[in-house]
Every structure is written in C-alpha cells, then in structure tokens.
C-alpha cells in the first residue's frame, strides 16, 4: 500500500514546492525564455475548455466545450463533448479528426493554416520556443502573475487565415487562447485546470 502511494506523494510535494518557490523567483518582469522554461516544467496536463466562436455570418457566438489533454513533447488531444462529440488528436506531425463515424488523418505539412493554429497551442504548452518561432513572431507582455503572449504568423499562407493568436496565462499555466482570423472571425478558448493538478 505504502509503496503504491509514495510516487503520488512525491509528485504532490513537487507541485507544492513549485507553488511555494515560483512567485519569489518570478517577481521580476517575465522574459520569453523564463516563460517557456516555466511552461516546459509540465510534462503533461489535463484541463477542461470552453470555446466561444464569433463568426460574422452567425448572429450569435457558438459555444463548445470539452477536455484538453497534453502529453509532452508532442501529443495534444482536444475532446469536444458539446454540442457534438468530436476528437482531434495531434501527435507528432499527424492530425487525426474524428467526428461521428468519420475519421480523417491529416499530415500537418499539408494544411499549414490548420497546423498553425494547433501548433501554437501545443508548442506553448510544451514551452517549445523554437517550434513557436518557426511559425510566429512572439511578443510578451506582463509579469509572471499575469502575462499575455501574442503570436503573429510569419508565413503569409498562414497569415491569410490567422491574423494573430493571443495567449493569456498565470504563472506556468495557460488560461486562454484567442485566435483572431484574418476575416475578423474569432474564437476564444478558456482553459480551466481541474482542482488537483496532475
């Protein structure tokens, strides 16, 4: 019994330690390098999300919600539960979309616009600055308490669809992702960590 609980205890202790130590260390204005290093500390995480899309042809924004699961370094799962169950899994360079009985497997390289959007989330969660800077220009505002990371596409093909992506976070946790499309449509995804952090 004790042997089984021990690793869990150790993990909790580490999280506590991180929570105690980080505000002191991060008091100064945040640099991109520091933010990325902090984000990279989470090898995996599960969260719930709520996404609101504002589309010009629709009178009201549409909402969807579900779960996010990230496993470093390269796997991101977005499981939409409402309004329709749908799964999107990005693993390495392969994107799998499942909706109803349909399953589509895409290679990221072939869909730069879609890839750009998803990669922004994955690379940020992984704290992978190199991956982000391959596709975006990065700008960071705020301090460790509350920061805003703005991504602007470098590739004009991506830029034709995505105007910019704004990520907001607190400490080492991403709280929201806002994608502003070139045609003015936008989506805001707010991320909530479940109470006990895994």
């Amino acid at each position, binding site marked *: 019994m004790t042997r089984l609980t021990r690793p869990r205890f150790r993990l909790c202790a580490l999280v506590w330690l991180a929570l105690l130590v980080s505000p002191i260390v991060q008091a100064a204005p945040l640099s991109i390098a520091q933010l990325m290093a902090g984000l990279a500390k989470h090898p995996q995480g599960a969260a719930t999300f709520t*996404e609101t*899309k504002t*589309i010009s*042809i*629709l*009178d*009201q*924004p*549409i*909402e*969807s919600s579900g779960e996010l699961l990230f496993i470093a370094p390269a796997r991101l799962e*977005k499981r*939409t539960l409402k*309004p*329709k169950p*749908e799964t*999107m899994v990005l693993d390495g360079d*392969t994107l799998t*979309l499942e*909706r109803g009985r*349909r399953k*589509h*497997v895409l*290679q990221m*390289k*072939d869909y730069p*616009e*879609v890839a750009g*959007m*998803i990669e922004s989330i994955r690379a940020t969660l992984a704290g992978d600055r190199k991956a982000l800077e391959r596709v975006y220009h990065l700008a960071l505002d705020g301090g460790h308490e509350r920061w805003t990371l703005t991504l602007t596409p470098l590739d004009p093909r991506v830029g034709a*669809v995505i105007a910019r992506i704004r990520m907001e976070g607190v400490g080492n946790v991403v709280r929201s992702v806002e994608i502003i*499309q070139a045609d003015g*449509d936008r989506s805001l995804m707010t991320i909530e960590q479940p109470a006990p952090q895994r």
Partner: protein
Amino acid sequence: MIHMRRRGTAAIVLWLIFLLACVGIISRTHFTTDLSAFMPRTPTPEQQLLMDQVSDGLASRLILVGIEGADAPTRASLSRQVAERLRADRTFVSVNNGEPVNAERDRAFLFDNRYLLSPAVTPERFSADGLNSALGDSIDLLASPAGLLVKSLLPRDPTGEMLQLLEQLNSGTQPQLVEGAWASRDGARALMLMQTRAAGSDTDAQQHAMAAIRQAFDQALDQAPGATPSAQLVMTGPGVFSVTSRDTIKRQVTRLSIISLALIATLLLLVYRSFSALALGLLPVISGALAGIAAVSLGFGAVHGITLGFGTALIGEAVDYSIYLFVQSEQNSADHQNWIKRLWPTIRLGVLTSIAGFASLLLSGFPGLAQLGLYAIAGLITAATVTRFVLPSLLPVSFRIHDLSAIGLTLSRVVQRAAALRWPAAIVLLAACAIVVDNRASLWNDKIASLSPVSQADVELDTRLRADMGAPDVRYLVVVSGANQESVLRAAERVSTLLQTQVEQGQLAGFESPSRYLPSVATQRERQASLPPRPVLETRLAQAVQGLPVREQLFTPFLADTAAARSQRLLQASDLQQTSMAMAVDALLIQQHGQWRALLPLTAPEGGSINAEPIRAALSAMPDVLFVDMKAESDRLYSGYLREAIALSLGGLVAIIVLLLAVFRSPMRVLRIIAPLAAAVMTVTAGLSLFGQQMIILHLVGLLLVAAVGSNYALFFDRPDPRTPILPRTLASMLFASLTTVAGFGLLAFSDVSLLQALGVTVAPGVILALFYSAIFARQADACQSNA
C-alpha cells in the same frame, strides 16, 4: 528391294512436305502465357464474370508502384516527378500518388451537381423541419476544428450536401501523405497507383506500361540532385504478374529445352559413339515437337507456354523410338527391316496405349489440359511414324553404333535375378498403398493459386503494397445486369440502399457503386423534384431559421442555387470526363456483348471478413443481381477441373485396358502389363504425399505419362511364352530409353514454375519405377524351372 527403296523415297518426300507445313503453321502461331488456358470453355454466369474481371476488369488494370530506399523527401519528389511524366502518357488512364491533381475539377463537379448527386436530397430534407435540423447540424460543424474549412460553404450549401458527397467519396481508406505524396504506414516507401488503358490480359501492353514506369523513374533519378542511387522501384499488380510470369515461363522453357537437349544428346553420344546416329536419332524428336506445336496451334488457335514446357519434357520420351530402332536391330541394314517385323508391333502397341491415355485429356473442359493431350498425341504419333517409315531409309549402308552387347548381357543377368526383389518390392508397394489411403484427404491441392507461375517473393511484395495502399482486393462483387444503362443504374441504386444498411450494421466497411457518381435519370429527377420552388423554399427557410443564430438573408445564394438545380440539365456519363470519378464509372459500369453491367465491389470491415450469407440472402430476391465471391468462384472452378481431370485420367486408364484386352484377348496378360504401371503410379503418389507435396492437375498428367511411357517397358517384358528370353539388346535399349526420359523430365523438377515442376517430380521417378516393377514382376521362366 527396289520397290522398298521407292517406298522409302516417297516416305521421305512426304515427311519433308509435312515438316514444311508444320513450320509454316508454327511461324504464324500465337504463343500465350496468360490465364486463358485456365478458363473454362463453357462458363457459368459467375465464371464468365470472373473471366472478364481477370482479363480486363478494373483490378486487372491496376499497377501498384513503390519507391524504396533513399530518404522520405527524395522518395516523395521522385514520386511526384514519375507521376508528372506518366500523367502525360496515354498508356495510363490515371496516375495517383496523393497529389491533388484533379482536386479542383472534382470539387467543381461535385459542388455544381450536389443536388443531383447527394442521396440526402429528399422532400423531407427541404421541409421547414428538415431544413431546421440540417442548418443546426451545419452550425454545429462550424464550432468544430473543421469549421474553418466549411465556413465559406454555408451561404450556398446550408444543408451540407457537399460535405455528404465528400465524406462518401473519402469512405475508402487512403494512404497517408508524406512530403505531399502517398507513403506506406511505416513511412518507408512512397506509393503510387496507376490504371492502364489496356486490359490486364494484354500482356504486351502491360509490358509497355511497366517499361514506361521504369523509364520515368530512371529519368527522375537522373535529374534528381545526386545521392539517390539507393532509391529503388518496385511494381506489382495482375498485369505485372502476367508479364513476369510470361518472362519466367519463356526463360525457363528456353533454358530447359537447351539443357535437356544437351543432356540427352550427351547421353546418346555416349551410347552410340556416332554423331550421325545422334543426328538421325533426333529427327523423330524434332518432327514430333514440330507436329505437336502445329497441331495445338491448329486446334486451339494459340499455344500456351506451359504446353511448350511440357513438349520439352516429351523430347525424352519421343527419342525412345529411335533408341529402340538403333539398339535393338542388328548391325546391318537388313536387320532394320527385321526389327520392323519383330519389334515394331510391340512399339506400335506402346504408342497406341499412350494415345489411348492422352486422348481422354482432349475431352477436358480445361483448355490447358486439352492442349497437353493434343500435343502429346500428335508428337508421339509423328515421332513413332518417322522412326518406322522414314528413319530406316535414311540410315547409311555403313551405319553402325557402338556395340552394346556387353551392357545388354549384364542387364540380362540382373533381370534374371530381379525376381529376388519381389518380396521387398511388394512390401514397398503395400506401404505406398497404406500411405496413399492414409493421406487420401490431403492428396490434392484444390486452390487455384497452386497453378500460379508467380513466385512467392512476388506474391509477398503484392500483399505488402496492397496492405499499404488499402487497395480493395476485389474479392466480393455484387453484379447487376440489364438491357440498358438506366435500368442497370436503377438496380444498382436499389442494391446500394440494401448494402448501406449492412454498412450501418457494421457488416461491411463500405462499397462502391457507379450510381454514386452517375445516378439514374429517374433518381436525378426525383432529387430535382425534392427541391421546392423558390417562393415555397423561401417561406420554409424563414420558418427554419427560427431559434438558430442565423438570418435567412444569409442564404440568398442557396435559394438561387436550388432554383437553378431544379431546371438543371441531368448528368450524363460524359459530364464526368476529366474528373477522378470518371475512372470509377468506367470500371464499374460496363457495356459488353450488348448487355449492361454495374459492379459494386464490397470492402470488408477492418480486421474482419465479409459474412457472405446474409448479403447473398438479402440480394437473392432481386432479379438480375448476382453476388460473386471471386476467390471461392475461382477455387470452385479449379476444383471442378481437378475432379474432371481425375475422372478423365481414370477414363484413360480404362481405354488402355480395353485396348490391351482387344489386342491380347487375355485378361491375365493385360493384368500382368497393367500391374507394374499401377504399382509405379501408386508408389509415386505415396512419395509425393510423403514429401508433403500436394498434387495439382499437372501431377495427374504426369501420372498418366508414367502409365503411357511405362506401358512400353511392360510390353517388352511381356511374352506369351516366358521361356523366350528377352534379348540383351532389347534390355539395353529400354535402359537407355528410360534414362533419356528421366533426363528430360527430371530437369523439369528443378523448374520454378510449379506446373512444370509438378510434371518433373512425377514422371522422372515414375518411369524408373515402372521399369523396375516391370522387370521385377515379369514372368520368370528360369526361376519357375529351377524351382520345379
């Protein structure tokens, strides 16, 4: 004497004319190696379909190409370059490697005709409620990650018909894209799929297509920036198989005939020690081979490669007659006439028994087998006739061969003691019978694949590429027949509805149908009628948007499109041209012999197989609809041949017995002649079974040959009076005759072509055994007397 000489000259002249005629026929003969020889002469509807599919169906026209070695970007770039070159080549109907070549045109075709093509277009869907739920679905989709891709379609296609069509088209699994080109699942190989214009049975055209692919690949390699020699091209597909098997058969037949001729010539030279004897001895053989090919050509219109391979082996049998003439006669010309008087009747009877055996094959519904029968009969008659009537006149006065009396005398002594082996031989025979009876269930291989000349390595490559590609194996087909295109398409639509329920139940992964791309006129009209007139649709749309976050003004383009679709010209086959759907319709909708046919290939669920019975049962109520399991059908076809061949062979045996009875009028004598042959056949069968070789049709032909050749030996050993000894010369001639036969057929045992190998492993040991059994069980005058 003068009279005789004149007759001889006449025979020679006739013979030369005959040879010229044969050469003339052969020069205009068509040689084939395709599967036609394995197709029945009077097919059932299922078999006819199988034949059509094998010879020029969609599956027969596909060539799967893999590019291996080098790195992924190089492979993808090679694939793109090869595809670009071949798309400009008229040899290919389509060249696919995952590049979106027709994508624009396909999209435009689907979008412009979405209200005629989509099975979701029904009156209910365009009611206020139907529109409301369809719009709701479309708005839900906007919320999904795929929403980005469908956003622009919403105003024109709010009911999502385009998406319906796209999902239906993508129902087949496609390989993944790596660097913009298809690649295998493990990523180690770039993949391409080509469809040739020519039928798979057109081996020359397939060879041309293969050469074009190879050339395009080599050119792409040359232009690639260095460091790519490690890249390799592999190809597979039914057409590729027929080309490689033709090459294999051609190469093997050529090599085997050269080696076997050299071997037999060496053997004869050792025996005769005379070049002129060798040359003269081969004359009947050559005449027989020419006559055999010419006869098959006249009788069947074409000669199959396997028949030629069989002919190679028959050299060893046909040469026997001249051996008998040279060895058995005394060393002077007078005795050649004497030989004719003394031994020709025996040999003539031997030839007749052989013919009786082979004649049964002529009745076979399996053209390949009938060809062998005709070849053997024509070849043996000619060889024996030339030996009897032409060869004696051609022998020079001073003709003599090496004196073989020493060998003959030794053989005489051996034969006299052979009786001592009766008990051991009887035990061997009993054991053989036991083995055959014990293994009777697994003696025969009734899979048609056992006849395939394709090597195991090629089959494995094919399986691998097919799995990578997710290519349909076209095992199960539903076939709809009718008098015209419309009726066939209508029936295909009814079948599709039924199959769709099977898909939803998970019994099937999917299916294809030409009606998917080209709906029947009636269905297109129904779909048009499902679209309400504009004012009606406007009112319904206003009701439908209530409660949804959209305004009806957004859908003005939708109103315009549906109004246009209501009076749109109906789709015809020609409208599909230049789209990827054209290929599917060409392959699946066939007009042949004044009859229309629609093919609906079924795909098994992933990791499972299709349970044929419920589908067959569900379809049985429909007229002119056929459910075909291609593999079971071809196996059934082959096992039918096998059963028929077994029956015919037994018939051949009966014919031999009847012939011998008619000649000798003594059942005991006939039994004595037949017994060693039956023993040899039984022992060979047991041997094959012991070595785990399951018998195919060609083993059976081999057994028939054992009986035919062995009958000569048995006849020589058979004497009405056991006290007349067999001349030592006769014994020597039998030994050499059997040696040449073993040499000819033994070589075949080393062939890669399973058909030829089967013949070799049966005949070579069988002939030796027939000789031994004949010697061992011959009536022994001396033994009887000494015992008495």
